[in-house]
Each structure stands twice: as structure tokens, then as C-alpha cells.
């Protein structure tokens, strides 16, 4: 590659409204939802029959048969069947990683145009046979003699026939994400009131954005749903304050995390269209913004050294430093609300002199974030969080927000299972 990177423009996005699990999209598969989201994007930008450079996507809760989920969705969409696609996975950062991957290919001149996408269904979840039954079936498959077969079958017990449901527990700790975050929340002393206030702001801002038509060209109705169904415009500090704690009940600290300040299980899909400036000009599309850079981080949560969802706190300062930026240079902070307390612990960490010095190796804390600049159109607490679809939702929304407000720069941050985090800079 001899030429210097060219800008990767964000042209727009399309998603289906996010719906609470086991409701309206209960019978739609990941492939169904992703195909619909792609088709909405194709319709919006007149891409029917077009061969695009590549489509990237993925899902967190994935059936083993869906090895080529994104390619299958492309084949089922109105795009040219000659459009290649690939799947990737980085837990809840999957959608953002897919978008970043497409942006990097564009920057390197490998492709002119592509789509970053993500989808997740908590309803149409994969169900597996138990580990014991699987072991017996595989042993039977390997057996060559009757005696070997009988020996394998003799291991089977009635309880082995019970199916294995997907677990939200971390593979290495067995603790759910909520329980992990409850430990971090307690360690940082994040109050219930602050969490509820952040959740309330998320609902209010997203409701206002829907009201003023902000999502009209970002969302295509699906299966009779035209708005995110977990959004509660009528939430109040009192109604949120009345909810019982859902996580951290086994800890020594008073539990503060509720169903109201945690994201619900959700179904949905999102897509983002990116291209070179030349491709955009040729197609008469004005870019909304540019995906400039990205930085991933990971933490050692297994030993309890760091909180499971704290990786973005490490990625952001590295990303800013590489780009010669400080918080003062950022107009919008899009911090994925896995839990209200995740956002609040990240912000507390960046304000903490001790954390910034000891953990980040900085001379001074990054400083506070103006709440008016934080998630201006609401985030996952209001929209819901179909894991891999969240990155696409955020990138399309924040790009449009920059265009609409004339602001210059946004910082995007998403925490993910496995102690990971992915952050990105979007500029007008």
C-alpha cells in the first residue's frame, strides 16, 4: 500500500426498532432481522442490485449453523449476490468492530464502499444438548465396536437429556454481567440515585429524539413495530426509584442496580453504510461524518484485578493520546449504557486522580464530562441492547447528530464481555 489512508465516510445507517425479547420479534431469526435491516438500508440509499465491496457483521448469541450469518443475510437482501460478507465477533462490541473493519478497508483503499452491521436475538436463542449428552454422542460417533457403543451409552443419565440454554454468565467466572458490574459499582461507590438519573435522562432524550423525527431516516419499521419498545417516555425518578435491586444482592454493599438502570434483553439489527468520498460523490450522497480511528482495550477481570466492563476506561485515553486530543476537544460522548453504572464508573475513573495515575499512567486525570454532551439522544438503557446491533445504532446516530448540530467530534465507547472495550472517534 503506497498511498496514505483516505477518509472513511459514514453515509448513513438503518436499523429495525429494537424490541424487548420474546415479544414482537420472538419468531424472527438473526438472519431475518439482519436481512430486513440491510434491505431498509438498500432502499434508503438506492443500492438494489449493487455490488458492494464487503459487508461485515456478527451476532453474540449465534447458532452454530450461522457460520456465514452476514453472507446469508446479504444473499437474502436486495444487494447484488456478488457482494461478499464476513462474520466477526467481539461480544457487545461486535457491531462497532464490524463498522471499524469496513472503515479500515476503505481507508486502505481495499474497498470503496461497505456495510458494518450487527444483529442479536435474545428470543430465538440457540439451545444446545447438555455437555454429557454431547460427549456421549461424539463418543458413539467415534466408537468402532458394539462394546464401545454400549460403554458410551451406559454413561447416559436421564438428566443429560435436559437442554442447555445460553447463559449470560462470563465463561471464566460464572458470574452474570450484572453481578460483575455490581462488584465494580460497589467498588466505585456509585449511588442508586445517580444511576436512576442517568437512566431517566436516557429515556427522556431518546423519547425527545423520536418525537422530533431524529430516527425517521435511521430506522425502518419491522413486524408492526415502529419505535424501540423498551423506551419509556413516562419514566420518572420515582418510578425508577421504586424498583427492587436486580444485581449485587449477595454483596456486602447495598445493592443499587435494578431492571430500570440496567439494559433489558432485546432483539434487533443495525447497519451502517460507509464509503470513500469518491464513491459517495459518484452516488450523490453527502457524508454525515467520518470514522477516524479506533482503539480496543482489555482488562484482567478473572482475578478480580479490574472490573469486567472497565476496559473502555483504558482504551479512551490511549485513543485520545494517539490523536493528540483531550476531553476538551470532544463535543459528544457516546458511552454505551450496558448499565447506568458502567457509564458512571468510567466517568468516575476518568475523574479520579488515583486511577488515572496508577492504572492509566497519566500525570493528571482526564477530567469530568459535561452531562449535556453525554448520550444526547439517549442510549441503550432507553433503546435496549441487542448486543451486536448496538455499535451500528450508535455510529449511525452519532454521525447524524454531528451533521445535524454542526458539532465537530464524537467519542464512542462500548464495553464488552470478556473484559473488553472498543472505542472510536467520529468526526464531521
Amino acid at each position, binding site marked *: 500500500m503506497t498511498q496514505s489512508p483516505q477518509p472513511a465516510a459514514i453515509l448513513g445507517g438503518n436499523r429495525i426498532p429494537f424490541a424487548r425479547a420474546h415479544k414482537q420479534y420472538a419468531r424472527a431469526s438473526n438472519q431475518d432481522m439482519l436481512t430486513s435491516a440491510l434491505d431498509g438500508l438498500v432502499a434508503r440509499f438506492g443500492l438494489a442490485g449493487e455490488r458492494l465491496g464487503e459487508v461485515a457483521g456478527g451476532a453474540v448469541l449465534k447458532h452454530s449453523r450461522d457460520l456465514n450469518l452476514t453472507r446469508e443475510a446479504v444473499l437474502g437482501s436486495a444487494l447484488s449476490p456478488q457482494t461478499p460478507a464476513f462474520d466477526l465477533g467481539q461480544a457487545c462490541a461486535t457491531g462497532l468492530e464490524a463498522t471499524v473493519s469496513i472503515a479500515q478497508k476503505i481507508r486502505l483503499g481495499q474497498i470503496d464502499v461497505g456495510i458494518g452491521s450487527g444483529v442479536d436475538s435474545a428470543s430465538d436463542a440457540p439451545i444446545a444438548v447438555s455437555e454429557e449428552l454431547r460427549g456421549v454422542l461424539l463418543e458413539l460417533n467415534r466408537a468402532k465396536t458394539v462394546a464401545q457403543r454400549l460403554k458410551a451409552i451406559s*454413561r447416559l443419565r436421564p438428566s443429560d437429556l435436559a437442554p442447555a440454554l445460553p447463559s449470560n454468565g462470563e465463561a*471464566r467466572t*460464572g*458470574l452474570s454481567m450484572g453481578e460483575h458490574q455490581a*462488584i465494580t459499582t460497589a467498588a466505585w461507590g456509585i449511588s442508586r440515585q445517580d444511576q436512576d438519573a442517568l437512566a431517566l435522562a436516557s429515556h427522556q432524550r431518546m423519547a425527545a429524539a423520536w418525537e422530533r423525527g431524529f430516527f425517521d431516516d435511521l430506522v425502518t419499521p419491522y413486524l408492526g413495530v415502529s419505535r424501540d419498545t423498551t423506551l419509556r417516555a413516562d419514566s420518572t425518578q420515582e418510578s425508577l426509584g421504586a424498583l427492587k435491586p436486580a444485581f449485587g444482592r449477595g454483596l456486602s454493599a447495598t445493592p443499587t442496580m435494578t431492571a430500570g438502570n440496567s439494559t433489558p434483553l432485546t432483539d434487533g439489527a443495525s447497519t451502517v453504510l460507509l464509503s470513500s468520498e469518491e464513491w459517495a460523490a459518484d452516488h450523490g450522497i453527502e457524508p454525515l461524518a467520518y470514522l477516524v480511528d479506533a482503539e480496543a482495550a482489555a482488562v484482567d477481570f*478473572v482475578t*478480580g*484485578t479490574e472490573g469486567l466492563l472497565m476496559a473502555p476506561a483504558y482504551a479512551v485515553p490511549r485513543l485520545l493520546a494517539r490523536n493528540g486530543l483531550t476531553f476538551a476537544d470532544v463535543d459528544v460522548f457516546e458511552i454505551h449504557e450496558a448499565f447506568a453504572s458502567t457509564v458512571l464508573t468510567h466517568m468516575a475513573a476518568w475523574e479520579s486522580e488515583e486511577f488515572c495515575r496508577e492504572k492509566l499512567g497519566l500525570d493528571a486525570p482526564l477530567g469530568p464530562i459535561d452531562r449535556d454532551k453525554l448520550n444526547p439522544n439517549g442510549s441503550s438503557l432507553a433503546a435496549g441492547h441487542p448486543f451486536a446491533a448496538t455499535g451500528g445504532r450508535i455510529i449511525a446516530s452519532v454521525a447524524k447528530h454531528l451533521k445535524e448540530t454542526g458539532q465537530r467530534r464524537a467519542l464512542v465507547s462500548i464495553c464488552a464481555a470478556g473484559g473488553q472495550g472498543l472505542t472510536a472517534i467520529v468526526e464531521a
Partner: protein
Amino acid sequence: MLGTYLAAAGSSVLKRIRSAPAVPLAQVAGPDSPRRTKTVTADPQTVAEFCRAVGEPVRSTVPVTWLHTQGFGASLSLLSAPDFPAPALGMVHVANSLTQLRPVHVGDTVTAAVWIDQIRTHPKGTEVVVAAAFDVDGLRCVDERSHYLAKGVEVDGATPHTAGERTPFEAPDATMTWKLTPRTADVYARVSGDVNPIHLNGLAAKAFGFPGRIVHGMYTAARALATVQVRTDSFSWDVEFATPVVLPATVSVRVAHDGAQTSVDVWNPRDGRPHMLSSVRTENGRQ
């Protein structure tokens, strides 16, 4: 192994009725006591099955917890020998400690030597220390001491010993949680060969005074060691068993690093009582 247990049961019943023949303890325990040796090849498939059961990655090295299972049958037959002065059945595994000097690799031919290292007094009865040494090509790889308590049994001539206080334990906040089911014990019994009925049969467990089937202590220990992800060639590992885990159970776990030492504690989240306390120590502190 079931046969060994049946023999152990038989000899234990006999010893309850009539004391074991009085032989000098030095003939039963100590450096000059008889050794049982066993030579076994660490079959990659067999070791892999064990690894899958206890959460160890399937690698080219053999976990020390698998080696333990290879010495266990010999130790059980030593404890149930006719001249052994205490009944084997009903003995409780109270502690285990070992040092790995160098790793054993799959495919290696391992010679396990097992002997009774010591029979000593204990406030609640008699403590038996079983030693096991694992060699490959004449080179010592692992040295192990397993401590068993024969409750309410007094043995003449037992070495006087002041048992250290149990490590005090106050349940901290958990960093992990493990779900254990009766199948956990079935699988561990299959891969370890330890088919003690207290792990596999509810009625048998009740007969020995447990509320129900209990998981193998060495399963809990093996899983704890797997959690630490020791990646140095040499390390030492100490385990103290407290209350048994009655199945099914969800247990709380805390992993904590402190310099060269990593501890893994497992307890009952309902009453805060410890099931097992363990620690791994490496030379340079980097697991």
C-alpha cells in the same frame, strides 16, 4: 477401583469389630514403610478427558491433579491393608499439598510411588499423611502429601502432633460462582476413577452422615487449580478442605493475587462457611 473400595469397606468393618493386628507403626508409616509403585503412561486422550472435566485446558502437559488420581488407588489400598491401624472408609480428606518441580508431559511414562508418611495424633482422632512421588525417567516431577483424618480413632504410638488452627475464614465478596450438580461428581468419578459411594449414591452418602451426595474434594481443588492458570514449570500448591459440598450446589469463589501467591477460596454463599481454601505459589510470582 470399586473393588478397592469394597476391600476397603470389608477391612474397615473388620477393624471396627476387632482392632488391626498390633504391628510396630514404623512398619506401616514413615520413610521405611512399604511403598506401592505404579507405572502409567499419560495417555493424551485420557488426560484430555480429565482436563475437560475439571476445566484445565487440553495441553501437552499433564495437570498435577491428574497425577493425584493415579496415586489415589495405591493410597487407598495401603490404608485398607489388614495391618493398617485405622479403618479406611469414613476417613476424610482434610488437606493436600504438593510441589511440582518440572511438568509431566502427555505420552510420558510416570512412575508413582505411594507410602504412608506419618500417622499422627489429631484433636479429633488420628491424621494419616500419605506421600506420593511421581517420577519420569528417574527424575522427580511431583511430590505430594495427602492428609486424611480418621475421626474418633486413636492409634497407639501415633506421632504426637499439635494440629495448626484452621485458617480463619470470613466470606468475602465472590469473584466467581460455580454450579455443581450430581453429574459433576459422576463425571469426575469417571475421569479420576474415584468411585467412592459418598460421591455417587445418595443413600450411601446418608449412611456416612452426609445430607446427600457430596462432590469429590479433589474435584473442587482441581477446578480451583485450573482457575489459577499456573504456567510456570514449578510451583507449590496447598489445599485445606473444610465442609463438604452437598450436591447440587452453587458455590461462591474468590481468586486473589498477592505477589507470588494466588489463593482460590470456595465457600457456601448461604452460610458463609468455607468448603475449600487453597493457594498456589510460584517462584517468580508470575502464573
